[in-house]
């Protein structure tokens, strides 16, 4: 044994004791504030867990998926109907995507209402918004890959929105689709985005997100005793393991109880009667139907800007913390009500 150790040490001449020490300091003894013993406050790891599971199931799906108009739908059918445990892998991937967005909504809401974005953590909020945008792009491109009627037309309608971007809209759309229409080029482009570029960006920003988080430490919300910490291992570590197993169980159950279907194969000549995006685009979709397209896009853009830079906007509104908090809670509550309202409205019509 010691021979092997010696051999390895000579090939990887690192200071082993130092390595252990750093590992202890960074991971095992990471100070976690006392309030994180409550489940409600430690759900930031959920998106991370789900992302890891998405990466894993995604790799497995890539063994069988073929991104071409002739084969995409057929290969999804093959995975679900022929490949052993294929329905499970795809179910996990599909439900994982939905839960990912859901958990991000919850995470964002929690961070907003505990005002964890305040100085000096403003940039981490911005990075988080970027991550949220990446997750939505992930979902959109992934959804389009199955190449059934709904995904084809969602891709068509969704990419059409890009045309409204001032000046470069037309060229951007042409570039994204790889042509005038949604074709084989679009499918391979979306596939490349989905399995290569987006994961790369996501991992990068996720890393930044966690580094910034660790540099400042987890923020301590008001109303909890300050300065009390416990080490990451074992309490929090096992919490994450439990959360992982719980999520796997939930996703597996959902896959069995509500298996994601594969729909009808894409038919570029017929638009289906009822065409809707995935539920997380409902608020935007409903809103865009309510107002003229140009107005809708500019208002959505303005909202996104305000949302992204809220940590920088909030301090400008008042010098008094109490007033700022009231404004933030008001704005947050209003956003939440509108978002939920539009979502429910869209799901009822």
């Amino acid at each position: 044994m010691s021979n092997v150790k010696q051999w390895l040490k000579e090939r990887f001449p690192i200071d082993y004791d130092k390595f252990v020490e750093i590992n202890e300091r960074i991971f095992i003894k990471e100070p976690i504030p006392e309030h994180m013993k409550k489940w409600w406050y430690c759900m930031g790891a959920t998106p991370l867990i789900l992302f890891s599971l998405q990466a894993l199931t995604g790799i497995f799906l890539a063994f069988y998926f073929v991104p071409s108009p002739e084969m995409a739908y057929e290969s999804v059918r093959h995975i679900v109907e022929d490949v052993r445990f294929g329905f499970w892998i795809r179910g996990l991937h599909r439900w994982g995507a939905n839960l990912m967005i859901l958990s991000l909504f919850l995470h964002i809401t929690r961070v907003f209402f505990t005002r964890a974005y305040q100085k000096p953590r403003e940039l981490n909020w911005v990075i988080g918004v970027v991550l949220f945008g990446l997750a939505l792009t992930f979902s959109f491109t992934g959804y389009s890959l199955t190449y059934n009627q709904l995904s084809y037309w969602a891709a068509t309608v969704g990419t059409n929105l890009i045309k409204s971007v001032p000046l470069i809209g037309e060229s951007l759309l042409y570039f994204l689709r790889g042509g005038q229409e949604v074709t084989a080029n679009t499918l391979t482009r979306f596939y490349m985005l989905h399995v290569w570029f987006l994961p790369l960006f996501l991992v990068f920003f996720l890393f930044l997100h966690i580094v910034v988080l660790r540099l400042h430490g987890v923020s301590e919300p008001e109303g909890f005793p300050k300065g009390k910490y416990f080490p990451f291992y074992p309490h929090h570590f096992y919490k994450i393991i439990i959360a992982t197993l719980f999520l796997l169980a939930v996703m597996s159950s959902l896959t069995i109880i509500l298996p994601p279907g594969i729909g009808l194969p894409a038919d570029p000549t017929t638009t289906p009667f009822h065409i809707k995006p995935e539920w997380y685009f409902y608020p935007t979709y409903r809103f865009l139907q309510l107002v003229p397209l140009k107005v809708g896009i500019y208002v959505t853009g303005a909202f996104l800007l305000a949302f992204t830079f809220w940590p920088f906007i909030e301090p400008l509104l008042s010098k008094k913390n109490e007033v700022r908090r009231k404004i933030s809670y008001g704005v947050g509550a209003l956003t939440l009500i509108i978002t939920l309202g539009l979502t429910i409205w869209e799901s009822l019509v």
Partner: protein
Amino acid sequence: MINEENQKRRSFLKNFAIIGALFVAVGLFFRDLWLYLYPPRKKKKFHKYLVAKTDSVPLGKAKEIKLGKDPVFVVHLPDGYRVFSGICTHLGCIVRWEEEKQRFFCPCHKGVYDKTGKVISGPPPRPLDQFKVEEEKNLVYIYIEQKTGGPWS
């Protein structure tokens, strides 16, 4: 003392159960993963195909038919009927039956097979491929592999 002993046994059993369950779970996971990644081997399926009536191929004669695009020879030998693929085992040219010499000849590289498909001379590396033959009443059938369509088979 006895209590302590009990305690030890209890914690041993508990740990054993937990670690055992973990092993089972991890094992099952990898088993399922293997099943997912390793497509099941399909048994080849054959079906019967009528190639000739017995009286249409007299002793010492051969009849050429087509299976799709591929030529097949039904040969009547003293010990019964044999059916050969007409594709030369050398480089895939199509052989022809030479009745007067009772042999198959491949014009591409002068490969010669006798009437039982064995290589007599020339470059072919192995005898002509044969089909399993069945005679029923006065009909000759062969078994050909069932090729189910679709890109996954």
